[in-house]
C-alpha cells in the first residue's frame, strides 16, 4: 500500500521544466492526490492558460510515479480555483531568488496605468535600485528587469492574483 504522504514526497522530484529549481509542489500547482484501487490520481492546475509546460509536467508525473512502482497514474487538469502566485511556497520563493529569479511581490491594483513600480530586489547584488524593462519576459509568468547598480538583467516572477 502506497501512502498519500509518500506520493506527495515523490512529486517533489517533478520539476517545472522552465524553472528547474522549483518542484511542482513548490509551485503550488498540485491540487489533489488520491490513491484508489492501486491507481494514483493527481489533480494539477496550470499557472497560465497557455503554459506550454503543462503537457510536459503531466508526462513527468506519470514517469516519476512509474519509477516508484506506481503503475497506474491518472493526471487531471482543472482550471478552478485559478492558480495564484500566493500558492508558491516560502521555500519555493527562496529557491527562485537563489536561482536568479526575483520572486513575486504583492502588486498594487494592475488597473493603475504607469503606477509607481513595486520594489524588486536584484537577485545578483541584492540592491533594490532596479527598474522594469518589460512587463513580459522569457515565459508567461515572468517580467524583465534590470539592476541599476550591478547592471545585470534578471527575470521577475510576476505576481498573479
Amino acid at each position, binding site marked *: 500500500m502506497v501512502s498519500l504522504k509518500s506520493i506527495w514526497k515523490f512529486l517533489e522530484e517533478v520539476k517545472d521544466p522552465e524553472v528547474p529549481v522549483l518542484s511542482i509542489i513548490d509551485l503550488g500547482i498540485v491540487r489533489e492526490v488520491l490513491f484508489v484501487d492501486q491507481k494514483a490520481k493527481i489533480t494539477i492546475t*496550470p499557472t*497560465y*492558460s*497557455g*503554459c*506550454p509546460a503543462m503537457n510536459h509536467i503531466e508526462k513527468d508525473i506519470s514517469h516519476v510515479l512509474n519509477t516508484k512502482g506506481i503503475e497506474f497514474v491518472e493526471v487531471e487538469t*482543472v*482550471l*478552478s*480555483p*485559478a*492558480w*495564484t502566485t500566493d500558492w508558491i511556497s516560502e521555500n519555493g520563493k527562496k529557491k527562485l531568488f537563489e536561482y536568479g529569479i526575483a520572486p513575486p511581490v504583492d502588486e498594487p491594483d*494592475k*488597473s493603475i*496605468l*504607469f503606477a509607481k513600480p513595486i520594489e524588486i530586489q536584484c537577485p545578483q547584488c541584492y540592491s533594490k535600485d532596479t527598474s522594469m*524593462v*518589460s*512587463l*513580459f*519576459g*522569457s*515565459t*508567461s509568468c515572468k517580467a*524583465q528587469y534590470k539592476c541599476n547598480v550591478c547592471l545585470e538583467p534578471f527575470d521577475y516572477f*510576476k505576481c*498573479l*492574483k
Partner: protein
Amino acid sequence: MNNKLFEYTLRIADDSLILGQRLSELCGHGPILEEDIALTNISLDLIGQATNLLEYAASIENKQRDADKLAFLRVDKEYKNSLLVEQPNGDFGSTIVRQFLFDSFRRPFFEALASSTDESLAAIAKKSLKETKYHLKHSSEWVIRLGDGTSESHQRVQKSIDVLWRYHSDLFYEDEVDLALVSENIAPSFKEIKKEFNQHVLAVLEEATLKLPDNNWEFTGGRKGMHSEHLGHLLAEMQYMQRAYPNMEW
C-alpha cells in the same frame, strides 16, 4: 439550449484564437525585442484560452470534433470571432490599438462572465481575467505613449483609431443566442460591460491626446460568420499543415 451554448462558447473561443494567431505572426518581427516577446506572450495566453474554450465547446457539441478539429478544420463562415480581431497587424500602432480595444472589452467581459451559472465558463473566465489585466495595462500604456509621443507616432496611432473604431460594435453584437443565455444567467448582459468599455477607452484616449472618429460607422457580422476578406488569408496560413497533412501531430 445546448446549440446556443456551443455557439456562444465558440464566439468567445474564436476571438482568442484569431487574435492569438494574428499576434503570433509578429514572432521574430516585433519592432523591438521586448515588444516581440510581449506580443507573443499575449498570443500564447490567448491561444491557451482558446484551447480551454474549444475543449469545452467540443464537449458541448459532442460530435467527435475535438478542440484541434474545431480550431483547424472549419471553413471561414463557421468562425464566429468579431471583425476587430481578424484585422491585419499593420504598423505597431495599429497592432496596439486593436489590442487596446479588445482588452478594454475583455476585462469587464471576463469579470462579468466569472459569475456565470455555467461552471466551466466561469472557471475559464476567472483564469483568463488574471492574464487579461496584464494585457490591458500593456496596451493602454502603449496607446498613451504613442498618442502623447512624437507628432509621427500621434498621427499614426490616431489613424489606426479612425480605422479600427468601426469594428468595436461587433464585440457587443447581441442576438438570440446571447439573449437566451442572459435569461439563464449563463451569459452576462453587454449593457454594463459596454459602459465600462467606453469609460476606460475614453479615459485612456484623453490621456493620450487622441480622439474617437467623428463618423458613426459600424461594421458587424463576425458573430454570424460574415467576415472581412482578411480572415480567409489568416486561415489559409493557420490551417495549411492540417489541410496538407491531415491528422499530422508534433
